[in-house]
């Protein structure tokens, strides 16, 4: 599975970067940067990030 953020919805609040800092961060301009791939053990944190996103812009895509 890969992380996918819908950039049309993402508003760069950065709550995902609090929930899963290894995968999401805001750059110096406050724009979200993220990694599509993540270790299995981090799934729980990715799910927290998806849940907490105020505008619900984070999705998981594909099966392993």
């Amino acid at each position: 599975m890969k992380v996918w953020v819908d950039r049309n919805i993402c508003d760069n609040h950065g709550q995902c970067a609090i929930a899963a800092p290894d995968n999401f961060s805001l750059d110096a301009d406050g724009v979200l940067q993220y990694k599509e791939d993540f270790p299995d053990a981090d799934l729980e944190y990715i799910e927290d990030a998806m849940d907490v996103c105020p505008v619900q812009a984070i999705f998981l895509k594909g099966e392993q």
Partner: protein
Amino acid sequence: MPTTADTVPYLDISASDFAMASEAVRDARDAHWYARTNYGIAVLSYEDVSTLMKSPRMIQGSAKWPQHHGVHDGLFHDWWAKNLLVLEGEDHHRIRRLANPAFSPRKIKALGDRFDELANELIDQWIDSGEVEFVEGFAAPFATRVLCIMLGIDEDEWPTINRLASTVGAALGVNIKAEIQEIDAALEELHRYADQLISDRQQNPKDDFVTRLVDASRDGDSLSDAQLQNLLVLLIFGGMDTTRNQLGLAMQSFIRQPHQWELLASRPEELAEAAVEESLRVNPTTRWVTREVVDTFQHKDLTFHPGDTVHMFTYASGTDPEVFSDPTRINLEAERKPHYAFGGGVHHCLGHFVARSDMQAALPALATRITNLGIVEGGDEWMPDSGNTGPVRLKIAFDKREASETAQG
């Protein structure tokens, strides 16, 4: 180097007749993206509120609120200093990380039917009388009983919780010092409620919100009893007045636009979300959000310096004609950009999924049961339209909607 030009508009935000929903504020926004005020910079335009609200170069601006108003010790002072609203950096993130899963929208959604039942139960109490004082008859009991449902407090105790939350809420008013004894006493009672809930769920875990907070853990870390207590009190403090006020403001907006109310009544499930978002956009209870600058930085023609106070004007940005067509009016069928009535960035409102979910139950329940709404002459009284606003009293006359009307949907 001068950072403000003479052409930048000025707003006296302490004036007794200052109002957010006014020509003065809209004219200022149309003239320039920000205004100077007697107490900091006011950011007015949608584009700039959107950018600066989330800026990592600013922190939440009310950490020293009690001190600025002469309160230097006591229960409220100490509670405020440790609450999530004013914590920053890793102290803030750690608690948010632990607390967030309890607020998962999936978990909150499961409560939608219960919120809907509650709304209808309250409406039943006055629907045959053709008139209701909306704050007392709906907004206050609804907002407080939603909290009771969330926290697992007996709903019959809502008047007590309502009284305590309102008293502590007065701490955000400029009269905090005069009222601090009552505020501290109410806070002590809220602490007792919180302690009871925490120890009960520690001994008897349930499938509920408080248990999820009590059990929350991550990488071996969990919330201490003191942190749990602080957080539960924050939920009561932050969740009651805001929801009560927002429901009253939503009614005010829909009373001005009966066609939109009828549209909601005809397609309640489909338009519930738009009804809540549009009410928040055109008539937010949180009229501004305050930040304090921590790093020097340039934004457009303005240099921000550490210690500067910056207000993000949510009403002005939510009704910016650059971004919204027919900006001050609700349009349930329009595509709208997101508003900032819940703030933004790392301090984005923690309870917004709860607020959205309960209001998405309340507004359609009301719309499908009452029509021809009007404010009874002399029956309304409002808080000042500045900080957090809403109706003190809102007497509404209405017709009971006939069953056949709602069936047309």
